[in-house]
């Protein structure tokens, strides 16, 4: 019996491992084909990306700089996906938060740095939370499908912030942007040459907070149950509709903070292209999907995505490879992961395994007879 459970556990771990590694190989394989089409040796390309994004202090700082908002949006998404609530609206919450932070950054004057930074972050969080509360309330009270509402609200957020910037808040420059935020509202770069700012600590605090929330609190216990079985959760008194609103509000406030860190640490003003192709909200969503909503996985994938973002930029200038090539790798990775080839067909694989084992056994006994 003991041996059996052990074997089952080993098989489970093996299947999980295969489901992570094989999609990676396939996705980078597809990337390799396109790399060849672009006339670049894929090994050179991937080697270059790894070298530039991980093998120097500057590279790591840039990678972390790109990963910072993705960690935050990834955790915002993972909280909602754990409860099987599909908040696809983090991107919109990022926009609203960024916009709010940009305004608070130059409109409020005369505050010392620490207070101003805190105030900007809180404003962004509140804006994101309020914006996320809309689909939350609609879902919880009227059972409106959250996928539809959140995606529509994404478009509304990008268009409205863009419109406001262009029409009312522009500075008269060729491209529409808000005024630069004050020095007191800026997050400090760890090294002025590289992208990473103190926001990375905010990201890690949020990461740890969500980790703790999911693993150690009653709230985490509840959202875990809600994600696994809504009817059950209602029946044992978890007040699911309220929890759903909370999940949206918490996720939305994180989305807002993610947007704010980009404005306060990197851009210093709001341009409505600051989170393009794909947005940081979407990268967080992908990281979360790939990690199956598990915090540690989200952190790792967010860093990988950060590295790919920076590496792709570096490869564009260094090797002349188009940026989109790396986006292809990222998208195909999500696609192959979604297949969950091994987990979904585990019985077939187990059959194969047992058959192989039987054959081995048969071969062994046959040999044994020969000896006798």
């Amino acid at each position, binding site marked *: 019996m003991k041996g059996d459970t052990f074997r089952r556990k080993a098989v489970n771990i093996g299947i999980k491992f295969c489901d992570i590694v094989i999609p990676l190989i396939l996705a980078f394989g597809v990337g390799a084909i396109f790399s060849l089409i672009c006339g670049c040796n894929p090994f050179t390309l991937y080697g270059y990306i790894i070298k530039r994004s991980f093998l120097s202090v500057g590279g790591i700082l840039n990678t972390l700089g790109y990963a910072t908002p993705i960690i935050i949006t990834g955790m915002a998404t993972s909280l909602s996906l754990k409860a099987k609530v599909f908040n696809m609206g983090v991107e919109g919450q990022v926009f609203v938060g960024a916009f709010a932070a940009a305004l608070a950054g130059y409109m409020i004057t005369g505050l010392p740095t620490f207070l101003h930074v805190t105030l900007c972050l809180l404003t962004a969080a509140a804006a994101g939370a309020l914006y996320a509360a809309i689909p939350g309330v609609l879902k919880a009270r009227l059972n409106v499908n959250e996928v539809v509402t959140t995606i529509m609200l994404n478009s509304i957020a990008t268009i409205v912030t863009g419109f406001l910037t262009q029409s009312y808040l522009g500075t008269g420059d060729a491209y529409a942007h808000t005024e630069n935020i004050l020095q007191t509202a800026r997050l400090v770069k760890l090294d002025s040459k590289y992208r990473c700012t103190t926001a990375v600590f905010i990201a890690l605090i949020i990461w740890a907070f969500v980790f703790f929330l999911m693993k*150690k609190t*009653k709230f985490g*216990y509840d959202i875990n*149950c809600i994600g696994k079985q809504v009817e*059950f959760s*209602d*029946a044992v*008194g*978890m*007040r699911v509709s309220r929890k759903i609103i909370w999940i949206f509000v918490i996720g939305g406030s994180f989305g807002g903070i993610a947007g704010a860190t980009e404005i306060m640490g990197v851009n210093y003003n709001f341009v409505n292209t600051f989170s393009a192709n794909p947005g940081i909200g979407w990268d967080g969503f992908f990281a979360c999907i790939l990690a199956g909503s598990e915090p540690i996985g989200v952190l790792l994938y967010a860093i990988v995505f950060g590295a790919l973002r920076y590496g792709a930029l570096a490869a564009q200038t260094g090797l002349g490879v188009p940026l989109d090539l790396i986006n292809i790798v990222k998208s195909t990775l999500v696609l192959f992961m979604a297949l969950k080839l091994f987990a979904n067909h585990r019985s077939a694989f187990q059959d194969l395994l047992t058959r192989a084992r039987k054959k081995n056994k048969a071969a062994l006994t046959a040999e044994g007879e020969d000896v006798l």
Partner: protein
Amino acid sequence: MDTIIETRNLTKKFGDFTANRNISLEIEEGEIRAIIGENGAGKSTLMNMLYGILQPTSGQLLYRGREVSMKSPKDAIELGIGMVHQHFKLSPSLTVYENIVLGAETVHSHSAFGKKVPGFLIDTKKEKEEIQALIDRFDFNLNIMDKVSDISVGAKQRVEILKMLYRDVDLLILDEPTAVLIPQEVDDLIERLIALKKSGKTIIIITHKLNEVKMCADNISVIRAGELIGTVPNDSTTTNESLAEMMVGRQVLLRVNKSDKAAGEKVRFAVKNLTAVDSDNKKILNNISFEIHENEVVGVAGVEGNGQTELMLALSGLMEVREGRVEMEGENICGLWPDELRRKGIGFIPEDRYQQGLCLDEKISNNIIAGYHELSPYCNKGIMNYRAVRENSRKLVKEYDVRLSADLDPTVGCLSGGNAQKVIIAREFSRDPRVLLVSQPTRGVDIGAIEFIHNQILAMRDRGTAIMVISSDLSEVAGLADRIIVMYHGEITGCFKADEVNFSELGLYMSGVKHMSDQEIQQGKGGGRE
């Protein structure tokens, strides 16, 4: 007599699990054979192989002496084997005759070039005639033009049987045919089965209700844990006790031992004029009123679908109520959230174990505190103490006899029906509730666990808890309850003292034929002695 169907060493495996092992069974033409066994013993697997739904892993299947292999129910029907499933497979919006011919329609035939060619228009006239003739021949008492949604459960079952007779089967398999019937319908069904046997059909009936087996079967085969334990003739030497022992493998108490401690005087839980409506504004609960005293069990009898589910939902705080009050010790608790109800000391055993009672993909330890997980020591200011949760689980698993294999804290989805129910019982009973609302406590639960669950409920009663038990199993209601109320179409139609009740009288109230006046219901002693 010839053997109509025979299995030789039939084995069915699902992965590593063997559902049927080396079953060799011979069924004679023209007999009624009962196949009995606990839930999960492998009866349904065996029947599904006889009907072509499942294919055996190894072993042979012989029909009239010839080896056959069936790929689907279609092959089985062609051979002459028909099956009526426990959950009817009928289309409610079609008429009786349309349901019967569905998939085997008669089409007009035309003459062309001196040959008969089938057309594509359905010959409804001919179909109706054929089916009317069939109904007359077997005296099935159905109107072919009735919509299936409008007819009773018993009639639906007759439609299912006719469906098979129309396809001209010789062997009829019935899976738990009496599970949804009221007592009168059960008698009716049994008479029909005997009549069918006389007309030359062979019948296999799967069940775990021993009384019915005794009433109609010629021979009885017992299956336990996937193996055929034996086949005995149905005669005076075969008693319910001996059959139960064969099924379970040990001696079983078939009667509930209720202490004669009388129900208390104090009303602990009262439902007053409860009315609820569905989305079409139709009343699903109509002016329901009853009281439960201290150490009293009130049983709710009725054919399924007469408002029992809704009553449970309303009392659990999961459904909105249009009018009325629910009082616990005088305080109105109607409209509270489920967690507030729990804090007031009400325990729930919901009807749908796997939807509302348990979270299947969650570990036992987490399931066994659900609903009480905000209490110390499991939770302190919002922070969970999972060590306390695991310790609690270890203790309760032992105390409530939840049987586990090697894994000490598996997900609940791995447990059998009985053990899963024990997890719920452990969760609710260990909190020592003042009121206990129970629905279908032993559905899909094996005999051994039924005994345990009944004793637990009665032990709670003796400790003073006010208990409501909803069950579609009449003998369960009668065995546990001190008082029985009957529900029909969302109303209470009768109220009886459990020790004075007789089942056929109950049946009249369950089918709406009789209806007590409000006063009689209040007094709670309808005529059971007539």
